[in-house]
């Protein structure tokens, strides 16, 4: 059962403390805060869709490089071995650590790819006058993909392992390691430049899609 919308579309409830209030019109760069709990309710971004599209495209390129190019090489007693992120997960699987391998694959490869793909589709779909219903579905689930994408955690783990192993073998950082490092910042910038309210305001409602 769908709820009934209110006639005043500017009314919002604070997601932290539920205080009902009316959002003011904002100039780009300004933000509105809840008067009771100081939670930021809305920050209007300048040129949000175009910038997000640019950053999402950059992230997509980095993501491809990060996954298909060697990330790390080890050199010990005259032998060298390189591996990619995917190869690392595969090796974990072969070592009998299926759960860990699945987690690494999901949080370091699948989730970031979904996060970038969703964002690209949302921004491209939002270029229409009235974004269709599937954009709403993607937009609703996009925060989940962002939550599960943990490239920075993997980077931290890799750095710790590097320090631990540096005494026993020579470590050669691969191109993918730098791509991943850049991806951490590009993804953060992509999330920061995106203003979901701008898309929500124009989107086709779930109720209308169902009625069709």
């Amino acid at each position, binding site marked *: *059962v*769908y*709820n*009934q*919308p*209110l*006639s*005043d*579309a500017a*009314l*919002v*409830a*604070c*997601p932290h*403390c*539920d*205080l*009902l209030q009316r959002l003011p019109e904002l100039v780009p760069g300004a933000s509105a805060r809840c008067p*009771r709990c100081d939670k930021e309710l809305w920050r209007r971004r300048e040129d949000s869709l175009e910038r997000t599209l640019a950053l999402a495209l950059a992230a997509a390129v980095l993501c491809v490089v990060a996954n298909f190019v060697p990330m790390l090489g080890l050199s010990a007693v005259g032998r060298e071995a390189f591996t990619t992120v995917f190869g690392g997960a595969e090796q974990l699987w072969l070592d009998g650590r299926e759960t860990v391998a699945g987690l690494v694959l999901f949080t370091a490869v699948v989730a970031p790819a979904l996060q970038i793909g969703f964002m690209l589709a949302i921004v491209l779909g939002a270029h229409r006058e009235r974004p269709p219903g599937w954009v*709403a*579905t993607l*937009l*609703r689930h996009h*925060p989940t993909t962002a939550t599960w994408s943990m490239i920075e955690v993997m980077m931290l783990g890799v750095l710790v392992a590097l320090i*631990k192993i540096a005494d*026993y073998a020579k470590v050669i950082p691969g191109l993918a390691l730098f791509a991943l490092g850049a991806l951490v910042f590009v993804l953060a910038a992509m999330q920061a430049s995106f203003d*979901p*309210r701008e898309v*929500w305001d124009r*989107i086709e*409602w*779930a*109720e209308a899609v169902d009625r069709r």
Partner: protein
Amino acid sequence: MSTPAATAMTLGLQGCHACGLVSRPVPGADEGSCPRCGDELSFRKSASIQRTWAFLVAAAICYVPANVLPVLTTITASGRDSDTIMEGVVLLWSPTGWPLSLIVLPVVHRGRARSTATIGLRTGFMSRWIGLSGYAIAVVLLLAIGITPWVRLLFPLWILLLSLDTLVESLGGAPRRGGPAEQCGVSG
């Protein structure tokens, strides 16, 4: 706290956490889906306080072995080497590594005790003396951890104390409750 603020819930409205739209459940229904994005809406998370307490207590219990037991064992040709988190901090404490150590330490220890105390004091959730003792414990953890490992038990003990205090207070105080039952009309 003296004048109840007009929250969406007291007015019988639901704000969507996915898209932000405020909507009203259809007459007769308690809750429904957001008409714009289709997300399911509810006035309250079910048993939120009880569940939070359960997880908080479980986390405080896990905190003890997490810090007393080794976190990682490295086996090499030269032998075995196991480290607890605090030993790792000590290990990093070298002329070049001390900034790293400074990051790890507050994140792992002081972070929890102190920020919990800050949140508690700001929200008025903790009695003043419990909040302040939280800061004291944070300082003790920071300074005395190297002297004896038993200091680590202070934080779980503090949580236990806090739990008891809150329990006593919530049993004695009047029930504070808002809900769909208190709906009043709103001019939409």
